[in-house]
C-alpha cells in the first residue's frame, strides 16, 4: 500500500509541476510584448491565414519539411505516434470509455513502434551527423533516452509482460477523485509510470517548452499587415510620450 501512496503522491506532484509550470511559462510568453512585426515572409495577411499557417506548422511540420526530409520523417513519425498513444491512454482515465477511444485502440497500440522508430532515427542523426552531434548537449541525448525508455517499458507491458490493467485503471480513477487504490506492483509498470512522472516534471523546465513556444513564435503567428495597421508595444508607446513624437 505504501507503494501506491508513493506513486499517488508522485503523480500529484508531477501533475502540479507540469500544470503550474506550463501556466507560468505560457502566461510569461503571453504577457511579454512583441514590439515589432517580424513574421517570416511571405506571411499571411489575415488572422485566418495565420491560423492556417500555424496549423500547417503544428500538424504537418511544414518548415521542417522544407529543411530536412529525414529529420521531418523521424520527427513527424515520433510526434504523431505519441499523439495516438496519448489518446489511446485516455481509456485508463475515462469510464465508460468513449467510442472513438476504442476505435483508435489498435492504431494507438502499434503507434508505440512508430514512436520507437522515430526516436531511434532522431538519435541516430544526433550521433552520426557531425553538425547535429556538435550542437547536442548531454540533456539532448538524455531526453531521447527517457522517451525511448517510456516507449519500450510501455511496449513490454502491452506485448510481453502484461500488467493487471483492471487494477491499474482503478488506481488511476481513484487518483482522479483523490482516493488511493492499490497499484499493481509490476516492475514494468512501476518503471513506466516513474519515467512518465519524470517527464512531466522536466517538461516546463526543458526544451519541451517548444510545444507551447511554437504558438507564441512571432515569426509564425503574426499577421503581415504593418503598413495597414499600426502595431505598438506598451513600452514603446512610453517612448513616444517621452519625446512628444
Amino acid at each position: 500500500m505504501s507503494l501506491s501512496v508513493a506513486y499517488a503522491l508522485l503523480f500529484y506532484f508531477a501533475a502540479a509541476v507540469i500544470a503550474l509550470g506550463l501556466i507560468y511559462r505560457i502566461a510569461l510568453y503571453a504577457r511579454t510584448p512583441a514590439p515589432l512585426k517580424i513574421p517570416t515572409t511571405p506571411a499571411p495577411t489575415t488572422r485566418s491565414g495565420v491560423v492556417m499557417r500555424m496549423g500547417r506548422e503544428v500538424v504537418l511540420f511544414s518548415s521542417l519539411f522544407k529543411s530536412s526530409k529525414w529529420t521531418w520523417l523521424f520527427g513527424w513519425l515520433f510526434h504523431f505516434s505519441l499523439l495516438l498513444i496519448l489518446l489511446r491512454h485516455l481509456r485508463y482515465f475515462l469510464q465508460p470509455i468513449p467510442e472513438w477511444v476504442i476505435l483508435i485502440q489498435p492504431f494507438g497500440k502499434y503507434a508505440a513502434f512508430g514512436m520507437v522508430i522515430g526516436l531511434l532515427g532522431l538519435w541516430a542523426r544526433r550521433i552520426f551527423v557531425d553538425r547535429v552531434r556538435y550542437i547536442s548537449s548531454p540533456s539532448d541525448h538524455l531526453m531521447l533516452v527517457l522517451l525511448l525508455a517510456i516507449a519500450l517499458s510501455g511496449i513490454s507491458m502491452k506485448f510481453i509482460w502484461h500488467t493487471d490493467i483492471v487494477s491499474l485503471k482503478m488506481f488511476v480513477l481513484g487518483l482522479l477523485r483523490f482516493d488511493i487504490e492499490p497499484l499493481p506492483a509490476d516492475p514494468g509498470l512501476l518503471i513506466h509510470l516513474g519515467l512518465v512522472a519524470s517527464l512531466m516534471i522536466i517538461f516546463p523546465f526543458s526544451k519541451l517548452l517548444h510545444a507551447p513556444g511554437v504558438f507564441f513564435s512571432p515569426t509564425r503567428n503574426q499577421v503581415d499587415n504593418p503598413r495597414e495597421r499600426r502595431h505598438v508595444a506598451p513600452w514603446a508607446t512610453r517612448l513616444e510620450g517621452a519625446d512628444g513624437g
Partner: protein
Amino acid sequence: MADFETPVIKEYPIVPMLQRDVMSHSKPFTAKAQFQEELGFPGELPDNWQKIALDKMGELLGKYRGLRVFLDSCVKCGACTDKCHYFLGTTDAKNMPVARQDLLRSVYRRHFTLAGKLFPKLVGARELTKDVLDEWYSYFHQCSQCRRCSVYCPYGIDTAEISMAAREIMDSVGVGQKYCNEIIGKVYKIGNNLGLPKPALADTLEGLEEEVKEDTGVDVRFPLDEKGAEVLLITPSADFFAEPHVDGLIGYAKVFHQAGTSWTLSSYASEAANFGMFIGSYENTRKVALRIREAALDLGVKRIIFGECGHAWRVAYAFLNTMAGPFDFLDPRYPVPQHICEFTYDLLQRGALTIDKSANDHRVLTFHDSCNVARATRMGPKPGGQFEIPRAVIKAVCNNFHDMPQDTIGEGTYCCGGGGGLLTDDLMEVRVKGALPRMEALKYVVEEKKVTHMAAICAICKSQFSKVMPYYGFTMDQIISVHQLVGDAIVLGDKQ
C-alpha cells in the same frame, strides 16, 4: 590584402564538414568611446560589466517575446545547421545558426533557467566570462541577420533577433562595432550614412541632371528639399555616390519624370538605411526613422517612396509605421511607405510608361532576391509580391531573364554576405566566404543560361557584390540596379 583563401566553387553545392574555430579570429574594429557615447552607450567596458550585461539580457527578455520564446524553444533538431551562408562558406561550427544562438542561449540558461542554475553542464549552460564576450563579438558579427535560418526552423526561431539582442547587450557594456555605430552617428549629425552634407548632395544631383541631359537631351530633374512635392523619395545614400547605385537613382528620376509625379529628396533624411536595426537598438532605430517623418511633415509631401535598399525596406515596410507613425497626414490612397518597384510596377501595369526593351538586349539578366526584402517584407497586396514585382519590372524592360536555382532565390534566397552591418573592409574574409552560395548559384546560370548580369534592389548587395565578385572570377560591373535597367529602357518624352 587578402590573407585568406577564397572558397572554391564546386560543381554541385555540398554541405561541408565542420571545423572548429576557424573563424574565431574574425572581429570587426570596435567603436571608440566618443562614438559609443553619442549613441547613449558606455565608452568602454566597465568593471561590473557582467552584471550590466545580464541585467540588459533580463530587460530584453521582458521586452521581446520573440527573444524569450526563441531561447526556450530550440530542441537542437539540426534543421538550420546547413542553412547559413556563412557556415557554408567558412565551415566554422559556430556559424551554424543554432550554434550561433547557443553562444547566447548558454548564458541565458545559466542565469535565467532553473535547469541551467542547477545542472549547467547537463544542459550546456555557462557563465558570461570575458572569453564568452569575445566569442559573441566575433560570431555575432558573422551574422547578416538575413533570416534564412528562420524559414527552415520548425519554431521559426530567428537568429537575426538573437544577434540583435547580443549586439545590444554588447553595446550596453561599451563593446560596440565601429562601422555601424560611427555610421549611426553620421546620420544624426549629417543625415546620411556617407556623411554627405547638403551642399555636396545638391552638387551631386545637379551633376546628374546635366549628365542625363547630355545623354538624352531631356531635362530630368533631381529635386532636393522641394516643399509641396507629391512624393518624398528616401533612398540609400550610396545611390548618390557610386556605380552601380547611381544608375538606379537615374532610373527612379526618369520614372518620376515620365509619370509626371512631382518628387523630392530630403537633405535631412537623405538615407534609407537604418543601422539602428543592425545593432538591435529600438531607440536608435526609432530615432533614425523619425527623421523621415519629420522630413515628410516639413516638406508637406503626400507620399513616401523608398529606393532600392534591402534592410531599409524592412525597417520601412515593417517598422516605420510602428516607430514613426501614424502617417495620417499622408494621402490615404497609397500604402505608407511604398517601394519604388511597387510604384514603377503600377505604372507599367497601367501602360503609363513607354519601354524599349531592346535597349537591354546586350544583357542577359538574373535577379538576386535581397534577404530582408524576401523574408521580412512584402510588395503589393499579395504575400510573395516581393518576389514577383521586381521580376515583373525586370521582365517588362528586358527580353532576356533567367532565374537562379529555386532553392537559392525567393524565400530561400542566400544573403549577399555583406548585410546586417558587415559591409566593412575589416570583415572582408567573412564577406568573401559568405558570398559563396550566391556565387555558386550565379555561376550556374552564367554557364547554363549565358547570364551576363545580376540585378538587385539593395545598396548593400550591390556594394558587396561589386567588391566580392572579382574574388570568384566575375567582374565588378556584373551587378546592376533594377532601376538602371528601367532607366535604360524607358523612352523619355511624350507618350507614343
